[in-house]
């Protein structure tokens, strides 16, 4: 009894203290430091490329003690990232300075496709572009397909029964799928899954015929010899996959990259923005991040501030054109 009372008193005391200290630091906000754990929103499902990268950044931050408060990853994959974007748009008060999001290209496509969400990405706070991810065309080794021409022939023969698995609706994977369908006169059926990890598994389990996964998502299966890359959607061949020709070499110049950026919500204070920009610049320079970039065939330099915002605006208009071409908007 007494022990329990004690515990209760101690807990209540701790809660009161926590509350007091919270209100106190609210007042002194000059040189920004997070006052509470930072919500690290991930715009995709667990196990995908964005998720793995976010968790890596989180662990780098913890390991090098770059932040006084922990970064807590929260996956918000719903509706091709719409859930995450709405969450960011609706943050208010202290949360505006304690929320950052790992984003990908659905950052452009989802608001373009769903104007009713009321999201304007130019209002978001640029923190840092950590990398640009690359895309490859993958098939299962069991299919016996060894080159791109073989893929085109097989997909053409199968018609709409050829299943291309990808992440989300009208996102990166579907844009590339539509490019292939249009350019090579194919009729592949695109099936969306939550997260690239799941997509990679569907291919390895022969539940899908092809994917356009990022290297980081397929690496495990590729190294085990389960899946084969047939083409790279990049300007130059990737060092890791020297046998996969670029689309340019195959006769149709097409390069497509995915940003791996960190953004803050609209209305983040300038002090907080400066703090997170400096923090992620440090993350970018760490040995672990640089190693990850090499291992997973990532492109792109660190961008922040207005340079990052300009990059977003350029990419947004490119995606607007692509979406119009496929009739999504």
């Amino acid at each position, binding site marked *: 009894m007494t022990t329990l009372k004690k515990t209760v008193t101690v807990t209540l005391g701790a809660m009161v203290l926590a509350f007091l200290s919270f209100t106190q630091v609210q007042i002194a906000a000059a040189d920004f430091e997070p006052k509470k754990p930072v919500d690290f929103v991930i715009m995709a499902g667990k196990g995908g490329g964005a998720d793995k990268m976010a968790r890596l950044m989180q662990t780098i931050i913890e390991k090098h003690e770059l932040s006084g408060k922990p970064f807590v990853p929260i996956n918000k994959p719903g*509706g091709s990232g719409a859930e995450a974007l709405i969450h960011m748009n609706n943050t208010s008060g202290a949360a505006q300075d304690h929320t950052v999001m790992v984003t990908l290209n659905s950052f452009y496509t989802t608001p373009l496709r769903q104007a009713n969400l009321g999201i304007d990405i130019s209002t978001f706070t640029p923190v840092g572009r950590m990398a640009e991810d690359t895309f490859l065309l993958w098939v299962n080794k069991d299919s016996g397909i060894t080159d791109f021409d073989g893929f085109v022939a097989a997909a053409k023969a199968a018609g709409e029964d050829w299943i291309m698995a990808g992440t989300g609706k009208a996102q990166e994977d579907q844009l590339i799928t539509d490019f292939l369908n249009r350019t090579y006169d194919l009729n592949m059926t695109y099936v969306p899954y939550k997260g690239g990890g799941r997509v990679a598994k569907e291919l390895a389990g022969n539940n899908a015929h092809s994917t356009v996964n990022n290297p980081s998502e397929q690496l495990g299966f590729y190294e085990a010899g389960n899946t084969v890359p047939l083409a790279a959607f990049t300007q130059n061949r990737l060092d890791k996959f020297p046998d996969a020709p670029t689309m340019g070499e195959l006769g149709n110049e097409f390069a497509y990259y995915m940003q791996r950026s960190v953004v803050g919500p609209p209305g983040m204070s300038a002090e907080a923005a400066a703090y997170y920009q400096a923090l992620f610049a440090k993350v970018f320079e760490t040995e672990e991040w640089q190693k990850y970039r090499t291992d997973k065939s990532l492109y792109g330099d660190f961008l922040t501030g207005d340079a990052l915002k300009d990059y977003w605006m350029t990419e947004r208009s490119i995606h607007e054109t692509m979406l119009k071409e496929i009739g999504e908007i």
Partner: protein
Amino acid sequence: MEIINHLFDGFLIAFEPLNLILIVVGVTVGLFIGAMPGLGSVNGVAILLPMTFLVPPTSAVIFLGAIYYGAMYGGAISSIMLGIPGASTAVATTFDGRPMARSGQADAALIAAATASFVGGTLSVVLFTMFAPPLAKVALAFGSPEEFALMLLAFATFIGLGGDDIPKTFFSIFIGLVLSAVGLDIVSGEPRLIFFDIPGFFHGVNFLVLAIGIYGIGEILWTLETNKGEVEVSRLDLTFKKFVANMIRLKETIVTMLMGSFLGFFVGILPAAGATPGSLMAYGVAKTMDRNPETFGKGNIKGVAAPESANNAASTGSMLPMLTLGIPGSPTTAILLGGMVIWGLEPGPRLFTDQTEFVWGLIASLYAANLLSLLVNLAFIPAFIWVLRIPFTILAPIIFILCIVGGYAPTQDMHDVWLMLLFGVVGYLMRKLDYPMAPTVLAIVLGPLAETSLRQSLLISHGSAAIFVERPIAAAIMACALILLFLPLLKFFVGKRKK
């Protein structure tokens, strides 16, 4: 033979002094994290992840694995003692664990939970040890149609869940399904069922918010009404003799535990499912199989044994897709996966051959973590029994605060706290009108999984439902589901005619 050698090497690693200490600390910390409503193994593992940089990767994963296991054991404690699910995986334990505690059998319920957890945990590690690579192939072959068939099977067990009044059970299921559809459409991304344009509904209705509301808040209201605040304090002294008697009583649950272990493990290895659906399904199957299904929900010890063996088995199972496929089978393993990346390990098909020390050290430590979790848990049972001696006037506010914390923690949104209180009142009314509540909870957990897999399957087949019978695994599961669905219906109508 090779497996035995690997396992032996693994035990040598697990029993290194540092690792052994980490296991003991891990299971104890995990036990308490699991027992706190709103704090599940996910939070425990996430909070302690940074600490693991101080030790080598193998020790780190052993420590986190021990926390994971301890939390699975601990989740049952607040389910039984307070009627609030300690973690999402322990919701099903509330169904019968709480009624047992109310009728003075808290000790039996706690011992059953601990023992069932041990059986589920150990059996699943044995299965993991022997069949990990072939089982990974099964997980790979499991596509959307198979997943949907499995969900349908789970729904079929619901019908057996709700007591004898089948129309009321259907009603409860549909309420749960409607709630599970709130938020953003999974495939098209369009918002739907955003009541009154409240932004909080965009992230959907979290299932813990519903469970804590219905069971935690509903429980307080119910006790207030039935006992007018005067709860009899049942003196419960746990003597060694009683302990032995309780252990002997577990004989009747052996079959249930075995069923729960196998079912839980199998559901656990499927990506996207995890321990919560596993434990709920095991509960449903245990009830459907039982000769006296009407005693479930009123304090049947099998209703504790089934979900507790299943959730521990599933927690081991969900490590399998993480290690072999690089896909987490549960939220906790997703964080473990993040840890592995920074430790420089690449999860995937080659991990078993490239990192034998890591993999087998982890597997061996799971055996040790299970045994230690059981011992630590049993040792603390007398302490947990103390809760029963607290007068209701003191206990009720504590439960209330724990419910609020538990409702806030998963999404950190006050909206969910209000929603939880609302569900508490609704849950109380449902109980008064004799509507079963478990099917609602089950429907909100499985609804989104079922919807996604159904829509993916139909995309693959261009709208033809034949895909569910053309694929052998899916067809077999479908057949089981239909049999399970029609059995209780048949019983219901035949029973009516007799009357």
